[in-house]
C-alpha cells in the first residue's frame, strides 16, 4: 500500500460517512466590488510602510525615474514602456540575465498588475512589463509604475483581477523584519527601497497594455 493510499484511507476512516457536498460559505465581508477606491488612502498606506510615493502624469514618469535612478544601472523587463525610462540610466534589458548580473544592478523599473489601496500593496504577476520574479528581488531599488485605474480598494478586489497561472508577488513596502524584539526594521533581503510612481488616470496618455496582455 502506498503512502498516498495509507493517508487517504486514514482520512476517510477519520471522517466516516459519505463525502459531503461543498459547503455554501457565508461571505459576510466586503467582497469584490463592494468598496470604493481611495487613492489618498493608498498613498498613505504605502508611506506608512516606508515606500516612497511619487504622483505624476504619464509623461513625467521618466523624469521621476531619473530622480531616483539617474546615472545607475537598471534592469528592464522586456515589456516596459520605453518612455518610462530616462536617457540618464544604463538600461540592462532582462534577456535571461544571469543571477549575478541582476544582483549587481542598482535598480529595476517595472509596471504592476494591480494594487490594493487599503493595505498599500502592489501585485506583480510576471507579465512582460514586470518580468521574471528575480529581477524585482535582487536589486536594491525597485521603482514600480502604476496607473491609477490599476488601484483597487481591497484584497478581494485584487484577487479577482489576477489569476493563478502566472507567479504572483504581493509587495507591501520594502522588505522588513520584526524578528528583533518585535520592532519593525525595513530592509532585509529584498529591495530596501521601494518607489511607487502613481500615474494619474486623467492626465497623460493611457499606457499601452498590449504587451502585458501577451505575457
Amino acid at each position, binding site marked *: 500500500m502506498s503512502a498516498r493510499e495509507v493517508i487517504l484511507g486514514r482520512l476517510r476512516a*477519520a*471522517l466516516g460517512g459519505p463525502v459531503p457536498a461543498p459547503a455554501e460559505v457565508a461571505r459576510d465581508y466586503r467582497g469584490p466590488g463592494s468598496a470604493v477606491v481611495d487613492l489618498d488612502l493608498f498613498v498613505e498606506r504605502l508611506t506608512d510602510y516606508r515606500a516612497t510615493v511619487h504622483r505624476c502624469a504619464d509623461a513625467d514618469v521618466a523624469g521621476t525615474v531619473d530622480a531616483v535612478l539617474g546615472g545607475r544601472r537598471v534592469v528592464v523587463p522586456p515589456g516596459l514602456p520605453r518612455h518610462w525610462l530616462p536617457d540618464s540610466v544604463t538600461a540592462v534589458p532582462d534577456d535571461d540575465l544571469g543571477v549575478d548580473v541582476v544582483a549587481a544592478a542598482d535598480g529595476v523599473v517595472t509596471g504592476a498588475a494591480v494594487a490594493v489601496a*487599503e493595505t498599500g500593496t502592489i501585485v506583480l504577476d510576471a507579465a512582460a512589463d514586470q518580468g521574471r520574479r528575480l529581477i524585482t528581488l535582487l536589486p536594491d531599488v525597485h521603482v514600480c509604475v502604476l496607473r491609477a485605474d490599476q488601484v483597487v480598494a481591497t484584497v478581494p478586489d485584487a484577487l479577482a483581477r489576477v489569476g*493563478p497561472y502566472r507567479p504572483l508577488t504581493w509587495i507591501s513596502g520594502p522588505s522588513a523584519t520584526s524578528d528583533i524584539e518585535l520592532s519593525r526594521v525595513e530592509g532585509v533581503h529584498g529591495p530596501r527601497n521601494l518607489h511607487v510612481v502613481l500615474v494619474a488616470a486623467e492626465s497623460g496618455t493611457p499606457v499601452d497594455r498590449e504587451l502585458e496582455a501577451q505575457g
Partner: protein
Amino acid sequence: MTRSFLGMPATAPPGVGHLRGTEPFPAAARRALSDAQLRRNLGHATATIRGRSAAVIGEVPDWPGLRAAGRAIKTDTMARLPELLEQLEAAVTAAGGTVHWAADAVQANRIVTDLVRATGADRVMKVKSMVTQEIGLNEALEAAGIEPVETDLAELIVQLGDDRPSHILVPAIHRNRSEIREIFLRAMPGVDRALTDEPAALAAAARRHLRQTFLSTRVAVSGANFAVAETGTLAVVESEGNGRMCLTLPETLITVMGIEKVIPTWRDLEVFLQLLPRASTGERMNPYTSMWTGVTPGDGPQAFHLVLLDNGRSAVLADPVGRQALHCIRCSACLNVCPVYERTGGHAYGSVYPGPIGAVLSPQLTGVADNASLPYASSLCGACYDACPVMIDIPSILVHLRGQAPHPRAEATAMAAAAYTMDHPALYAAAQRAVRLGRLAGRRGRGLPPPLSGWTASRDLPEPPRQTFRQWWAER
C-alpha cells in the same frame, strides 16, 4: 482493530521530530518563570504585538465576517479533506509539479533527503516553516551530510545560537537585541566586530551573511501557508524577502506542507490573506506574499516537489471536537494574548507548537498520553478564543482533552469521592462542616496537604465562615 491496520488514523511516531517535550509543563515552566530576562523579553514583545494587531484589526469594518468565513471555509475543508488533497495533487501535477505523500515524519524526511541527494547538492536553504521543525528535517539532512541553512532572521538567530524556537511567528522572541548581537559575534562567520545591537544593524548583518548563500544554493525547502486545491497554487507569506529568494532563485524547490493547509478555492485566499497578517504580525499586509502554481518556464525553479504530510493529522481529524485544531493558520495570535505563554515562553511547552494552539495540537498529534500536561497548561481564561482569526474554540478543546488525559490515581479517587459527596446533600453538608472543623482543628498556618499546598504556598486561605449559607438560610 490494531494500530498497525494501515487504514486507521495514526498519531505521530515518537523518536523523530519535535512534538514531545522531555519534561512536564509545570516543571519546564518553573524554570522559565525564574528567568527574569526571559520574562521581560516576552512581556515586552507580546505587549507590542498585541497593540499593533489590535490597531490594524480595528481598521477593518468586516473583521467578524472574515473570521466567520475563515472558520466556515476550514470546517468545509476538513469535511472534504481527502477529496481536496486529490484535487490539489491533480492540479499541481498538471502544472508541472511532483506530489509526494508522507504518512509520518520519517517518510517525509526520507523523501526530502532523497530529493536533495538526487540533485547532487550538499546544501539547502530553508524558508521558515513550522512543519519542517515538527518533523526534525534539519537533523535528518545533517545526518545525510546535507547542510540546511535557515534564512529567516529569527530562525538564523536560533540556528546560530544552537537554540530552540519558542514562538510560531518569531522563533527568537525570547532573545533581546543584545543577546542577538552576542550570538552573531560568536557564530556568524566574517561578521563585523564593531556590530551594534541596533535592530537595523543586526538585520543588515544577516543580509550580508546570507547573500551569497541565496545566489549560489541550488535547492530550497519551504513550508506553505496555503495550497489551493482548485488551481494547485501554493502561497508563502513572509516579510524579509528570504522566502522570495528561496522560492525564486534555486533550480529545485521542495515544499513540505501539512495536509490541513489545503483550501478549496482561489477565492478563499481573499479571506485568509486578510486574516493572517493582521492577526499575526499586526500588519495590514506582510511585505511579501509569493504564489506559484507548479513550474513557470523561464521563471523560478524548474523542478517543484510538494510533500503532503500526515504525521498525526489524521488522528486529529478523527476527533470531532479536537478536529478544529487543524483549522489553525499559524498566526500565533493566541500565543501573544495568552497569560500563561507570556510568562513561561514557548520552550516550556516542549513541542514546536507552543502556546494555546500548541496545547491542543501537540497532544492530539502525539496522542494525549505523550503530552499529558499540556491540556492543563491554561487557566481557561478564553483570551485565545477571542483572538483566533478562524475562531478555534481552544478552551473547549483543552477541556475535552483533559477528559482523555491519564489521571493520577489519587486525584481520580478524590474526584470520584467529591462527586459522590456532592450528589448527596446530607454528605455534602457534613463535608462543609468538616471544612470548618478541619480549619479549626489546628491548620492555622498556611499549610494544606499536597497538591493543594501549591496554592497555599503564596496565598492565604480564607477563614471558614461561622456558618455556611445553607445554615444561615435554615435559621432565618
